[in-house]
């Protein structure tokens, strides 16, 4: 006796509707060698002991438990099997409660017949179940940190100090991020570069950190604790100066360069040449050529730098490099961009020369004490708060959290350097929430900086003086102020950096309503994401100041360390695999796998990377000879299930075969059961990982074996773990619908619908309508059924 089936009464929940004795007879009639037992509560200790004893005494090899939904007790019974020394994956659950007894309470005879079908399908599948090895994925020590601002720097240093190997990728030619542009920092007024430079230098010197600057992430694959990134390193056109002796930083090249371009690290206040070092504190402190503006690259007209270079290190032929990195964890520290003030056209940024962004003001203030500052500020200066934040007209509802304080800082620094300046700050609500911030705000008021509560409506420009006229209501005195200013500083809000898009897309990271990356939980998982092994640091998660950013960056490092300390994680064995003896190496499956888990092995056959495969089954359709397969949902098993569940369909009966994706539709049908909702009794539900698993062959097979209609349920693309799956499902559907049309069979018999977890009513309406529809149709003739049989042999 090899197979045992346990019929659970569920304390009457099942047995009051389904006649389990009749089910027992039915099973015995078909195969008397099967061990059948009825128990009141299979999930209880006594029920589980029954299974354990039978495995040990009777040598059971396959076990079916006909009870509640697998989502309740599959785990319980799998561990029962494990305890008895059997592989947990030879277990099959027949869902008699949620899918049968609870739904058809008032029609016990029909429910009993349905229960027999469900049990038959489970037995047929169980016969073909085979042990699956629960492999462990070894975790390594490699971490990719994306973004070299203060967040990425702090995370990298913490990780590297704890012995992890870090690859830090920064898109700009120097690390330091936005902080490297700031003048001084609030509320202590210590200089940003002075506190940042030692950390930047430590990155370069750390033996555990590999730094790629001027480099971008091209693509990342992976979904859980194993990621493979492709990094594109743009050329600097300077011969590799890892050995710093090559370039002497003698500056001769910049002296002869005829090009002038605004320097980003000076926010355009000061210019640079086409060959340049970004900033005095740049790390790495290396030259690069801005190919977009260099005359050599434009029209080959200039080579002056190469001519004067005493070391001959300029290399116009340098090409971009692609570097592949495999890591166990990723920290996303992609930071922010400042809100583009041009979107707020009433403020005239880009049009009025004396309207500047706060970032530009950082540089203006930084140079203001010089004898000949590159940009003067004039007598009267205004700061305008909430530009692009707290403004639904530009779609940003959130507060950017730092603008109040940086305006107070810039105003204070300016007032200290030029006490004669008359400074006004126009605000709506002043938010000085951090440690020492309120005191700092008060100090600025003490200096004589005037705070006016009102948001300017618009600016105009005096055409002659170029002064900016601000119109604003002082909401506290209710007077309208209309005054000229020599300089107006816009306190731009923060938005997620544009360069984050590629990271968001390839790692499938969710975003919050504010457009920043969404944490796994706002309270107790603030640096985790929903992707295991991907963490957030800094402003990529939402606007924050430097202390919060550094704290969060260290938190992200700590979470990485804790996660990798597991050393190994179990892999779900329900993954795709290749029947090596069947595969002919046609490579058709390669492009079918969006997570890129399929590649060709040394034998020229397809192979599945278990760390990358998600087990959706979308690839299987692409294999013309059914060499690709999915553990636990193999082709053979699904054919057997379909055949078994339809085998005892009587002539006058109709059947809808429902393929329900395990994540949404199957649970939705469970939920209908829990609520004792009623729907047509002609459906039979089979569990699949995703709608795309049901290949055209399987669909045709279902019709050939007697299904009057086939219904596939899956989650919508947006909320699916497998966002590509619905495309595949639709394609499969088209193939079969075409075939149905050829045979003059109504194509409405094949339905694909998408559900969210709460769509119970939608499911019931659709399934009942389909049942009504097929009631009015003539049955598919045996002749047509024969033609629907997949024309290739089912591989044994």
């Amino acid at each position, binding site marked *: 006796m090899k197979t045992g089936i346990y019929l659970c009464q569920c304390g009457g929940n099942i047995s009051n509707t389904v006649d389990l004795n009749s089910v027992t007879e039915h099973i015995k009639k078909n195969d008397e060698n099967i061990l059948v037992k009825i128990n009141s509560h299979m999930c209880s200790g006594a029920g589980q002991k029954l299974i354990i004893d039978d495995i040990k005494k009777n040598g059971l090899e396959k076990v079916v438990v006909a009870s509640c939904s697998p989502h309740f007790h599959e785990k319980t019974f799998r561990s029962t099997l494990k305890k008895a020394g059997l592989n947990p994956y030879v277990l099959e659950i027949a869902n008699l409660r949620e899918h049968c007894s609870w739904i058809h309470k008032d029609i016990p005879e029909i429910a009993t017949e349905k229960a027999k079908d469900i049990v038959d399908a489970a037995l047929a599948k169980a016969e073909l179940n085979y042990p699956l090895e629960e492999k462990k994925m070894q975790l390594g020590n490699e971490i990719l940190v994306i973004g070299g601002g203060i967040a990425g720097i702090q995370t990298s240093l913490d990780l590297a100090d704890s012995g992890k190997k870090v690859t830090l990728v920064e898109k700009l030619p120097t690390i330091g991020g936005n902080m490297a542009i700031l003048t001084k920092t609030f509320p202590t007024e210590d200089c940003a570069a002075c506190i940042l430079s030692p950390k930047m230098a430590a990155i370069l010197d750390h033996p555990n950190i590999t730094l790629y600057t001027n480099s971008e992430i091209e693509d990342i694959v992976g979904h859980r604790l194993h990621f493979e990134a492709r990094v594109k390193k743009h050329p600097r056109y300077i011969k590799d100066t890892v050995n710093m002796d090559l370039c002497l930083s003698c500056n001769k090249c910049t002296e002869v360069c005829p090009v002038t371009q605004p320097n980003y690290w000076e926010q355009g206040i000061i210019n640079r040449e086409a060959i340049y070092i970004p900033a005095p504190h740049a790390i790495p402190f290396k030259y690069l050529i801005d190919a977009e503006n260099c005359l050599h690259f434009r029209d080959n007209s200039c080579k002056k730098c190469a001519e004067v270079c005493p070391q001959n290190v300029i290399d116009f032929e340098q090409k971009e490099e692609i570097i592949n990195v495999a890591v166990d964890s990723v920290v996303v520290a992609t930071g922010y961009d400042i809100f583009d003030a041009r979107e707020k056209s009433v403020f005239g940024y880009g049009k009025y020369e004396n309207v500047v962004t706060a970032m530009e003001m950082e540089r203006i203030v930084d140079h203001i004490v010089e004898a000949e500052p590159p940009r003067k500020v004039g007598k009267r200066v205004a700061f305008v708060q909430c530009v692009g934040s707290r403004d639904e007209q530009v779609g940003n509802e959130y507060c950017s959290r730092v603008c109040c304080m940086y305006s107070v800082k810039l105003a204070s620094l300016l007032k200290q350097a030029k006490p004669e300046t008359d400074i006004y700050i126009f605000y709506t609500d002043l938010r000085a929430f951090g440690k020492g911030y309120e005191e700092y705000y008060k100090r600025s008021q003490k200096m004589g900086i005037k705070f006016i509560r009102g948001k300017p*409506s618009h600016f105009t420009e005096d055409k002659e003086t170029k002064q900016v006229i601000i*119109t604003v209501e002082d909401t506290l005195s209710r007077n309208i102020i209309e005054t000229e200013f020599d300089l107006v500083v816009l306190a731009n809000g923060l938005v997620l950096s544009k360069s984050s898009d590629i990271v968001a897309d390839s790692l499938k990271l969710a975003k919050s309503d504010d457009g920043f990356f969404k944490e796994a939980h706002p309270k107790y998982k603030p640096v985790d994401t929903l992707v295991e092994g991907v963490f957030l640091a800094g402003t990529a998660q939402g606007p924050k100041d430097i202390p919060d950013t550094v704290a969060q960056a260290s938190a992200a490092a700590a979470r990485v360390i804790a996660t990798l300390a597991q050393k190994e994680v179990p892999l779900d064995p329900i993954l795709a695999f290749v029947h090596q003896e069947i595969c002919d190496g046609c490579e058709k499956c390669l492009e079918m796998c969006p997570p890129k888990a399929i590649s060709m092995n040394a034998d020229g056959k397809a192979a599945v990377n278990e760390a990358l495969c998600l087990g959706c089954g979308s690839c299987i359709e692409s294999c013309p000879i059914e060499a690709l397969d999915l553990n636990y949902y193999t082709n053979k098993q699904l054919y057997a299930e379909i055949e078994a569940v339809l085998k005892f369909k009587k002539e006058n009966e109709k059947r809808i075969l429902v393929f329900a994706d395990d994540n949404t539709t199957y649970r939705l049908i469970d939920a209908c059961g829990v609520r004792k909702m009623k729907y047509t009794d002609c459906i039979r539900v089979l569990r699949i990982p995703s709608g795309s698993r049901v290949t055209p062959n399987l669909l045709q097979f279902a019709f050939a074996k007697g299904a009057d209609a086939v219904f596939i349920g899956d989650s919508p693309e947006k909320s699916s773990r497998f966002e590509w799956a619905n495309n595949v499902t639709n394609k499969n559907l088209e193939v079969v619908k075409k075939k149905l049309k050829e045979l003059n069979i109504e194509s409405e018999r094949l339905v694909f619908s998408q559900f969210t977890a709460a769509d119970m009513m939608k499911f019931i309406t659709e399934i009942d309508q389909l049942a009504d529809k097929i009631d009015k149709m003539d049955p598919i003739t045996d002749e047509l059924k024969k033609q629907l049989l997949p024309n290739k042999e089912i591989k044994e």
Partner: protein
Amino acid sequence: MAQIIKLKDKNTDFLEKITELSGEQITLCEQCGTCSAGCPFVSEMDINPSQIMRLVMLGQESVMDSKTMWLCASCFTCTVRCPRKLDLSKVSEALRQVKLRGAIDEIDIKEISDEEALKLPTIAVVGSFRKFTG
């Protein structure tokens, strides 16, 4: 001299009435003053638009005596600039509705002499009767 306001249920009733009539959630106003600063008629108004919002929120029916709602030209400058996307012209309209439903005649046709009637542009006469009579 500061006026002492007592916040009573009656005040909330007035706020709710204006909220319902205008369809604008007046409690959303954050009093930033953008509307007042951008209003082309603000210099003619006795109460600034932002202050109207404030007084309605406090349930001060005295706003009904203000000129502001009659001066509102529904030019929508405030509406397109309000950071909370409130439509103040709808609030003005609601206030006018309340006033008009009070069936109070601000002008009396009998008081207009024949001479005046001849001089007045027709559109002004029609407009005045629409706006200033109940």
